[in-house]
């Protein structure tokens, strides 16, 4: 757990004269579930996009982002170098899963396309692998799902498919930008369980960006609290919960209903210890 897979150091993002993200520093360890929480508009998504190299050109980015003990600063990479990292080393999951899937291709074909981009593979083998992955994602009928179009499936199903698809390339770090927005509580739980399961299986780190504290309480190892473009507190979940250093963290934490905490925490412990 100690080896850092992502090291963000003094990251500042500026648009015109406005400082959007100010002097951000944190690191994510191997096999860690790292949660970035904060209110809407505090710069969480911008930070995740900076890590993915997806910011618009007019934004002024300073600082260093190091991935996996590589000496290259991600901020200085060219578009061509990014192609080897985006998706391959850093996976990404969106807020709107239904928009993130190609509307005119079946799920199976989209997954086949990823495998074909990845390696030379026979069609039959690739199809086998896709079915395997769909089974892995807890779909009991992979044939039906593989021949369905994204608009025929629900948001929760699409999000699970997105997770499965980004994992086909076996990234070391998965950035999930509010993956449960717009899903009902049951589907949220399904998606989150999927994430936990895959994290265990592939030994990867997850950076979860969210404003849903119930989820944070349920799964986080480390929590970073953001406010107005700054990280005001980074600590393990237990510290954040029991002994917050900042008044804002305490206030944020008190927003959450209690009964839910206890129930969900126990349940996910049960999943993780399996």
């Amino acid at each position, binding site marked *: 757990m100690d080896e850092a897979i992502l090291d963000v150091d003094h990251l500042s993002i500026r648009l015109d004269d406005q400082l959007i993200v100010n002097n951000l520093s944190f690191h994510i360890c191997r096999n860690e579930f790292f949660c970035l929480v904060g209110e809407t508009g505090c710069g969480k998504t911008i930070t995740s996009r900076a890590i993915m190299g997806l910011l618009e050109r007019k934004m002024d980015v300073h600082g260093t982002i190091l991935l996996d003990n590589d000496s290259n600063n991600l901020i200085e990479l060219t578009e061509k170098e990014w*192609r080897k990292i985006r998706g391959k080393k850093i996976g*990404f999951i969106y807020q709107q899963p239904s928009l*993130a*899937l*190609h509307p005119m291709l079946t799920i199976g074909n989209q997954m086949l*396309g*990823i495998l074909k*981009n990845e390696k030379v593979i026979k069609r039959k083998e690739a199809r086998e692998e896709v079915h395997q992955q769909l089974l892995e994602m807890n779909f009991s009928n992979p044939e039906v799902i593989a021949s369905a179009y994204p608009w025929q499936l629900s948001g929760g199903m699409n999000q699970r498919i997105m997770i499965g*698809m980004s994992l086909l*390339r076996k990234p070391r770090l998965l950035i999930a930008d509010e993956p449960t927005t717009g899903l009902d509580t049951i589907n949220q739980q399904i998606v989150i369980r999927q994430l936990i399961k895959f994290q265990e299986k592939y030994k990867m780190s997850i950076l979860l960006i969210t404003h849903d504290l119930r989820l944070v309480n349920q799964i986080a190892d480390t929590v970073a609290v953001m406010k107005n473009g700054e990280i005001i507190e980074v600590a393990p979940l237990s510290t954040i919960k029991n002994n917050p250093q900042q008044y804002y963290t305490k206030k944020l934490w008190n927003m959450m209903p209690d009964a839910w905490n206890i129930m969900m925490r126990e349940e996910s412990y049960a999943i993780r210890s399996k």
Partner: protein
Amino acid sequence: MVRRIACFFPIICLGFLVFTIIMGILFTPYDPYEVNTQEELTPPSSEHWFGTDHLGRDVLTRIVFGASYTLLFPAIVLLLSSLLGVVIGLISTIGRKVDLLTTAIMDSFSSIPSFLVAIIFAGLLGPGMVSTLFAILVSWWVHYARIVRNTSMIIRNQPFILSAQLSGTFGVKLIRKHIFPNALPIVRELIFLDMGTIILMISSLSFLGLGAQPPIPDWGGMILDGKSYIQIAPWVALIPSVFITIFVMLFYFMGRRVQ
């Protein structure tokens, strides 16, 4: 039920007319090019349903044979110009600089009136089908290029394009597999809507003597032939005009339906 029939009405009409035309080509007893000085400008009768023109040629037969020029040729022109437009529209999505260049080209081409181009090409190559083709191609591909470019720009910012990039698809493959299929439906709609306009354009070019040359039985050219006799034999000019009107209307209704 009535509504349903109304929906399919243009398609049924079009199908019926195309069927009649094919039957006509197969079974007509007359030659569309044969001059018969005995029967100049005879009015419609049981022998010549639509009468004959100033050279004694059967108007119905010429309409039937001319249909292949007046209907197939615009389809070819449309396909070519939409192909060109789609290709250039997609090229402009490659990058910002390429986009600036292609947009400038589109703007300059869209300011050229097609009739002028037709006259220039008629001067260079001689009037005929080829110069008509070029004239319409030059002015018409811009419509498609613009639409495809704008749609592709919108599609490019959709999340699924980014997720395609995340799954390792770049460059030409990204455009071909992800942007193009999503831009295609709009082009398909436009082709149907434009068909009537193109028929009208080609017919008017022929009417001006810039399009298909006699003795090709193009409908626009037939109106030109009949123009001089409109007082004594109105059917020669009137019947091709009616046919052009019917087809333009049918294509327009069909385009609306496809939309």
